């Protein structure tokens, strides 16, 4: 057990060390969501009016972008495993007395801290986009970001434990992760899209993650009446039931726990 705990922090420590030492990664990680935010909000705010009383497109999209950057950072924990395998460093880790569960959870924790850092940077920029913040929002966001990022890291690590090349992982991100992210309702309300897209989006676990974060920002602004409408812009309506924040987080968290266990199992089988 002590070995597991040590494994978690040693591996997480290195993930963070790597993150701050690799300037290009630091810049691209921080820059990407900001660019998305600026381009989409500037480009679309005149085309798209108010989505609900008091909620314009920028306000709607901002939490979605936070969720998206959390996903991408978390998934990158898998890329970090593939990278370690390519440079041989994974061998140094696997032959050490660290437990495999510690290694997996440490990678996940490292990615989560990076994801959280990213979310906090986005929060700091909120005034630039005209988003008002409260302490309550910040305090609610932190645990939710951690649950979502640990879960998504589970997905990344499970894939990473099986992949041999970075190119393969990049292809996976392009072909699977990006489409799923876009279909998760980052840029549009999933309750009011064509039927086929609604089905895909609601089967997509990321949708619930995006919704959990969006609710933190918008739940207070949207009146009960708007929520009760047939196409509420927050909450995911499945079979007539509109999910709550807790349900959103629980769904992603349970799935994430299963993925993390799968990743640990997969690592245990190596060497």
């Amino acid at each position, binding site marked *: 057990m002590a070995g597991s705990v040590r494994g978690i922090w040693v591996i997480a*420590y290195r993930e963070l060390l*790597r993150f701050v030492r*690799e300037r290009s990664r630091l810049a691209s990680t921080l820059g990407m969501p900001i660019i998305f935010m600026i381009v989409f909000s500037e480009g679309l705010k005149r085309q798209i009016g108010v989505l609900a009383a008091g909620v314009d497109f920028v306000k709607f999209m901002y939490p979605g972008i936070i969720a998206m950057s959390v996903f991408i950072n978390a998934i990158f924990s898998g890329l970090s495993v593939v990278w370690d395998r390519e*440079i*041989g460093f994974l061998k*140094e880790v696997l*032959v*050490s007395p660290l437990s495999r569960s510690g290694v997996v959870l440490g990678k996940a924790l490292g990615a989560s801290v990076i994801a959280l850092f990213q979310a906090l940077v986005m929060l700091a920029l909120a005034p630039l986009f005209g988003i008002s913040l409260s302490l309550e929002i910040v305090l609610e966001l932190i645990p939710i970001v951690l649950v979502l990022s640990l879960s998504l890291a589970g997905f990344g690590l499970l894939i990473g434990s099986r992949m041999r090349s970075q190119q393969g992982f990049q292809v996976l991100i392009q072909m699977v992760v990006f489409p799923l992210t876009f279909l998760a309702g980052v840029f549009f309300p999933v309750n009011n899209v064509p039927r086929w897209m609604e089905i895909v989006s609601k089967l997509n676990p990321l949708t619930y993650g995006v919704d959990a974060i969006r609710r933190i920002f918008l739940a207070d602004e949207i009146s009960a009446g708007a929520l009760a409408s047939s196409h509420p812009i927050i909450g995911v309506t499945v079979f007539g039931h509109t999910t709550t924040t807790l349900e959103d987080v629980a769904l992603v968290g349970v799935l994430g726990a299963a993925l993390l266990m799968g990743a640990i199992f997969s690592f245990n089988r190596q060497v």
Partner: protein
Amino acid sequence: MASREAPERSEAVNHKQKTPSASEPVIAARELSRSFGRTQAVKGVSFTVDEGEVFGFLGPNGAGKTTTISMLCTLLAPSAGRATVAGHDVISERAEVRRSIGLVFQDPTLDEYLTAVQNLRFHAYAYGVPKRVREERIHELLTLMELWDRRDSSVREYSGGMKRRLEIARGLLHHPHILFLDEPTLGLDPQTRHRIWKYVLDLREREALTIFLTTHYMDEAENCDRIAIIDEGEIVALDRPEVLKDALGGDVVTLRVEEGDAAVAEISARYGLSASLEADTISFNVPRAEEFLPELMRSFSSKILAVGIRRPTLDDVFLSLTGRSIRVDRSTTNQQLRRYVNTPGMKAQAN
């Protein structure tokens, strides 16, 4: 100056408490085997390594050296047989084995984006080296490996030899009982190879280490206390290098002659020695060749164009045991060919 007080060392790594007694071998392998699909890479090897020994596995590429070392280091499960390392079973006590060994792989396993010190600290954390011991040990090892001045450089700025030295330092950081070195000098220039060996032999003195290494360089195997010559997954000889060479029956004499077959026959008829013929050169072993040769030349009937005498090398030992030379073995040529094929734009030539 790094101090080297004994109490600190024994506190550093608790597994040291279970020190095998002098009579008990540090490594013991019995009928160790490993198959990959239908290929049997290691075919039931048995050997023991004593405390403080430098023990070498010598053989051509593909002979089963890395497979054996991987099994001893718990990186690969044996298909059959068993082994103990530092008194622990490599199958049922993997964690204990891992804590007692230091390992330097054939391929680099450093994080090149981190500095030397960061790589070493990571290792210290992973092996639970206490802080007090850690910084002193890092200083000591980096000084020994002559890397202290470059301790805060990213490893990607290091040369191949520096990287290898850093890996050796890292392998020793947690005060292992046994240091495993898989082809420690592969791909390094002769000068660097020489230096690495100096460090390794120094370390053995300083740290009371047992060293297990693999190599396909003959001259390096000479540095070992004992070597096991391995070919096609089997140990074909195991002894001290001098004993193996002496078993060949003295010095190696080479004669370049006009008629090789006749000369071989004459050597056999007159002295009862069996000589081998390669192109126009015959070679055979004889004790005290410097006295034997003048006597031979006085009365030899075939015409001799050139003569040579040398002490036998381990390559001669390998040749006499397997009928092949290590240097021109098949697998090396295959590997070179593969590298050639993998080079972009070279496909046409290789086909």
